[in-house]
């Protein structure tokens, strides 16, 4: 494979484009509401109408407005059809010849679409994720060619530093710095890992990227491998994402067939292979050291850092671990330039962020917005606010590691530092909206229960501490807790946060802490008078003991 071959594939693909393209969402959300049959019926209807030469029915990745799925769009009409049933297919095809349809029409001019800025999701909902030719026609693998043939590994790292990209897995570690550290480590063997173990409740960004544009992740990984000097990559994907795994397997196979993965890529001395490792259902395996243990075939438990994976990772070798979305950002950055990317977003948070909008909100789905977009714009304008005229009470970001942002703080720009200041985190991109009917103590209990369930059990604070915190939260919710219990809960939050071994335990108190910070009254309303009155550490006062 040389660049001319790549361009030839792209030209052939563009030349084969038909006049009209009917796109049918084939991501997990729409497929669960039968979009596969919708697509099949559309194809049949097109054939029956004798339009097969002019109209292409294309299965595409996530079309973003998940709550209205299955989604179908017709490019010549600039129309989006919502909640399409298999029976609607015939009618939809008839509209191509001037027919009318009663199928619900969506609005591409709604802020939900208009305010989005796509970098990672550019191809999502546009191209067929199961065909490498479609990705190549959308400038795919051009960045890899540019990097392999025109840049030194050092220059790639420099470009990443200049772009200002920060890790999209949640913590926001500067990606260029991480790449540079691994690149500088002396070792004959290095690895690149893509963390696709997305486990936060309500988060589905990485799944959508993998299902909609798997090649962008592969290309990002290959660029990273060249920059750090690795020849083997692993994608660690959770078993709960069968469609993502299937599309990844398919993508890897296609890339290998075309010589875009394997030995001597683009006739350079660079070799790179990618294998998939499937998680067995443990949330903690999203933590990098536990993930690596799992890839090695061991029990997925974390270990203390340092040493960091960049120094000693998989089988003791220097390892670069990045999240799906981080890798998906890499090809556009190298194609369009680091300056272009650095021009988007805020001073310290560059580029865009994909969020999965869920919960009590009118428009649930996938959005990509520039960093620094105010939360209010996301939930009220784009998300359409709470359904049925409800009032938004809080927005939860960062899943079980994050916190609840109260409605008063909705004008906060969404970037790493602002969210941290509010006691939450950017997280991987889950955004759960809550309305007035939500009890915040319930929210804290829910996330704590999640952490109790998902704690690996290795370190004491996380294993026993989260269990005690859950017990105290339940006690308070059952109106059996006292001010003393609340104090114990707060003390435990501080202890578990500071003494746990890995990120899971260190952030497990966050939902409780942030709801305590903004909705303390809700906790206090549930408290019962203390039968022993104020005392220290459970010691009753002498006078009280005497009267008993």
């Amino acid at each position, binding site marked *: 494979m040389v660049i001319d071959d790549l361009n030839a594939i792209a030209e052939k693909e563009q030349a084969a484009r038909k006049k009209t393209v009917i796109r049918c969402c084939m991501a997990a959300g729409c497929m669960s509401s039968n979009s596969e049959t919708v697509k099949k019926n559309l194809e049949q209807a097109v054939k029956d109408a004798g339009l097969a030469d002019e109209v292409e029915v294309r299965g595409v990745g996530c079309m973003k407005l998940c709550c209205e799925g299955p989604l179908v769009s017709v490019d010549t009409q600039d129309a989006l059809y919502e909640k399409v049933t298999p029976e609607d297919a015939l009618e939809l095809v008839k509209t191509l010849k001037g027919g009318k349809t009663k199928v619900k029409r969506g609005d591409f001019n709604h802020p939900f679409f208009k305010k989005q800025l796509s970098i990672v999701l550019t191809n999502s909902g546009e191209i067929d994720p199961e065909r490498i030719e479609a990705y190549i026609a959308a400038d795919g693998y051009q960045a890899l060619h540019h990097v392999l043939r025109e840049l030194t590994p050092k220059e790639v790292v420099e470009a990443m530093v200049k772009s200002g990209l920060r890790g999209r897995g949640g913590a926001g570690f500067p990606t260029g710095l991480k790449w540079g550290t691994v690149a500088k480590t002396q070792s004959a063997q290095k690895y690149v890992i893509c963390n696709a173990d997305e486990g936060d409740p309500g988060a589905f960004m990485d799944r959508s990227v993998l299902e909609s544009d798997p090649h962008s992740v592969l290309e990002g990984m290959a660029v990273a491998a060249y920059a750090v000097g690795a020849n083997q990559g692993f994608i660690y994907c959770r078993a709960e994402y069968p469609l993502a795994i299937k599309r990844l397997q398919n993508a890897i196979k296609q890339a290998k067939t075309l010589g875009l993965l394997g030995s001597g890529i683009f006739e350079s001395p660079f070799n790179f292979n990618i294998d998939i490792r499937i998680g067995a259902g*443990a949330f*903690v395996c999203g933590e990098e050291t536990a993930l690596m243990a799992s890839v090695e075939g061991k*029990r997925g438990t974390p*270990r*203390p850092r*340092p040493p960091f994976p960049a120094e000693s990772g998989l089988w003791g070798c220097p390892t670069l671990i990045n999240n799906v979305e981080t890798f998906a950002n890499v090809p556009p950055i190298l194609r369009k330039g680091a300056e272009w990317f650095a021009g988007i977003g805020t001073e310290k948070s560059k580029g865009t962020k994909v969020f999965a909008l869920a919960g009590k909100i009118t428009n649930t789905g996938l959005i990509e917005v520039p960093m620094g977009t105010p939360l209010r714009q996301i939930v009220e304008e784009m998300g359409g606010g709470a359904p049925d005229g409800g009032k938004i009470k809080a927005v939860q970001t960062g899943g079980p590691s994050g916190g609840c942002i109260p409605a008063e703080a909705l004008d906060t720009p969404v970037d790493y530092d602002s969210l941290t200041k509010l006691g939450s985190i950017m997280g991987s991109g889950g955004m759960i909206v809550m309305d007035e009917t939500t009890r915040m103590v319930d929210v804290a209990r829910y996330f704590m229960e999640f952490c*109790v*369930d*998902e*704690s*690996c*059990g*290795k*370190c*004491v*604070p996380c*294993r*026993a*501490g*989260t*269990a*005690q915190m859950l*017990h105290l939260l339940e006690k308070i919710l059952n109106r059996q807790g006292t001010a003393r219990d609340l104090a*114990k809960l707060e*003390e*435990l939050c501080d*202890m578990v946060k*500071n*003494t*746990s*071994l890995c990120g899971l335990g260190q952030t497990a108190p966050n939902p409780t802490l942030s709801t305590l910070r903004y909705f303390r009254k809700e906790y206090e309303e549930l408290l019962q008078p203390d039968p022993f009155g104020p005392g220290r*550490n*459970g010691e009753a006062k002498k006078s009280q003991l005497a009267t008993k």
Partner: protein
Amino acid sequence: MAAKTLTIDGKEVSAEEGATILDVATDAGIKLPTLCHLDGVYDVGACSLCLVEVAGMNKLLPACTTKISEGMDVKTDSERLRKYRRMTLELLFAERNHVCAVCVANGHCELQTLAYSQGMDHVRYDYSTPKWSVDATHRLFGMDHNRCILCARCVRVCWHIEGAGTKNVSGRGARATIITDLNQPWGDSETCTACGKCVMSCPTGALFHKGSTAAEMEHDRDKLEFIVNAREKKQWLP
């Protein structure tokens, strides 16, 4: 190997490169509370008792797994650390059924000793009193899961010293448990060499030699009758 100098609790010490904070502190005569650490097997940093403060780090670091570096300034004792250590011990006591009075390890238990030394005089958390089983199927040893603190010392000893690989951890979170082979009764284990290293490595009374439990103590009931008769009937011969 290059030598490094660092400060521990205000004391300047030197140590070999690659040593852990725990090694250096022990050499310097500073005793750090430890529970999952066992000389001779690798450390896992699980119990969080040996956490120390290192100047310039916003995180507490486990002394057993953190390697020293030049100019490091370590504090092994502070009001905050003492509080966290006490809380960790309280959490352990509340987690399973640790009843010292009827425990085989009473008097030579590391958990009990730590509770004394760290000033943990009572447990403020509600005991969860879970129902855990006792595996008494092995001819020499027993395993009482009620006393287990999941330090995994037995697992490490079994795999890395004896090389038998009999013991393992299964399940996660509070449901995590030490298992034998593929969660079979210990007595049926084909890999166990009955070396007893796991029993010796156990810091609590979770693993014990048969015959040492309170229930297995031999009582001489006749002696009681003799005393009663002697007192009440002034009868001195049986």
